[in-house]
């Protein structure tokens, strides 16, 4: 697995044109440290079947997008959505038969190694994510840290 660490230090002229952050020549450096790893994920057979059913023949134009963002009781929340293939070069693409999964580079360290499962159950069923990078998960399973 390769690890790329990109530290970007560029100056940004703020959009506001007056006040404490404005004025000619006033700029601040951008804080941006992006760790990117090659993502490897596991998709169980039940998850594959459930995804195929959900995509219903649109596998050529649609992808499963898995992302992580701030929120929930433990710090970060998962988000899964079937969307039209995004026009964005920042994604890593993982193919399982005809199903394509997209994970954005900025989420790669948080989502590398996840196992996506599907439980067919009336209570607590649906897609579930096991994450080896998570030190803690909240009771509902949607939030992790």
């Amino acid at each position, binding site marked *: 697995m390769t690890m790329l660490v990109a530290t970007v230090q560029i100056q940004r002229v*703020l959009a506001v044109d007056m006040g404490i952050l404005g004025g000619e020549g006033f700029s601040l450096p951008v804080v941006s440290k992006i760790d990117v790893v090659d993502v490897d994920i596991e998709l169980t057979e039940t998850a594959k079947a459930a995804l195929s059913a959900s995509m219903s023949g649109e596998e050529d134009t649609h992808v499963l997008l898995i992302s992580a963002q701030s929120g929930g009781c433990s710090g970060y929340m998962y988000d899964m959505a079937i969307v039209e293939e995004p026009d964005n070069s920042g994604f890593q693409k993982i193919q399982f038969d005809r199903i394509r999964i997209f994970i954005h580079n900025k989420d790669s360290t948080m989502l590398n190694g996840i196992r996506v499962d599907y439980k067919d159950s009336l209570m607590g069923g649906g897609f579930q994510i096991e994450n080896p990078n998570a030190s803690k998960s909240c009771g509902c399973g949607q*939030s992790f840290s």
Partner: protein
Amino acid sequence: MLVSPVVVANPSVDTMGNLSEKFAQIYLMKSSISVMEGSDAVNHLNNILSTDIELLHKGMRMDGLICDSNGKVADVVNCYNVGQSILIVGMGSNTDSTRELLTRGVPWDKKLSLLDGNGALEHLKIIGKDPCSLVEKIYPELSKLSENMYSEFENVVFSLGMHNEHEIIDVIVRRDNSDFYNRIEMCNHKIFRIEDWEFARMTIGYPGANEVSSKYLPHDIGMLNLISLNKGCYPGQEIHARLDSRSKPKKKMVIMATDNVMEIGKHSLSDDSIVKITSSAVRDGSHLSMGICSVDVSPDATLVNYNGESKLILL
């Protein structure tokens, strides 16, 4: 910039047992100053902070805690909506961890940028007796300050906050704003250093780097007013909600006035309880410490096995 050695009168203990400074003073802080740009900045911050800042409109300031998933306080931040950006001021000791948290969870389809304001801006605090009068003296043009709003005058941001019923005025200023520093000098005031702030903050029980270090719950360090139990999920919310519904706080923050240096760590009290001293400072021979002890501690408790006088001051 004018930074002086400390020359101020020591605080007195009033009839209610509270410490009070004789004058308001200006302190230069070692804070983390960041700017979040982007139309979704308030929503993003609201997912992270312990308070509901959804209604942080332009011209407003709101404060909140950044907690870990165990509910422990990792940072205390002031957020100012300055229009198209949010100015975020946190504790300098937590700069890297807070900035990592703020940038890591940005949704891939949101254009949010975090900018480093530390090179260009400075943060000062004014505390002590009637800090608003001191601001009026330096800036007579400034209108009266009110909580949750900030006032900006000639690129200086002033805002009023409260802690343990003490007024605290926060000032954000550009480093190159010579007019600001000249005005302070013209009023015969000085800017005190962060080392001097350590003693001053203890007079009002304001937590510092040792207390805001992912070791203590908001209840332990007197920051209960900065958690909102009805805003929904935020990191640490499960723990805070459980403490609220099934338990009661067991610890609280106290000030210990002594005539010798207090070592950081656990000390026995005369009522058989323990005080855990978290930070300690000295000014002109007066020693103050902040510590955490049981909520049931006796107000008359003194240190045992201590060579000198000690007085516990409850917050």
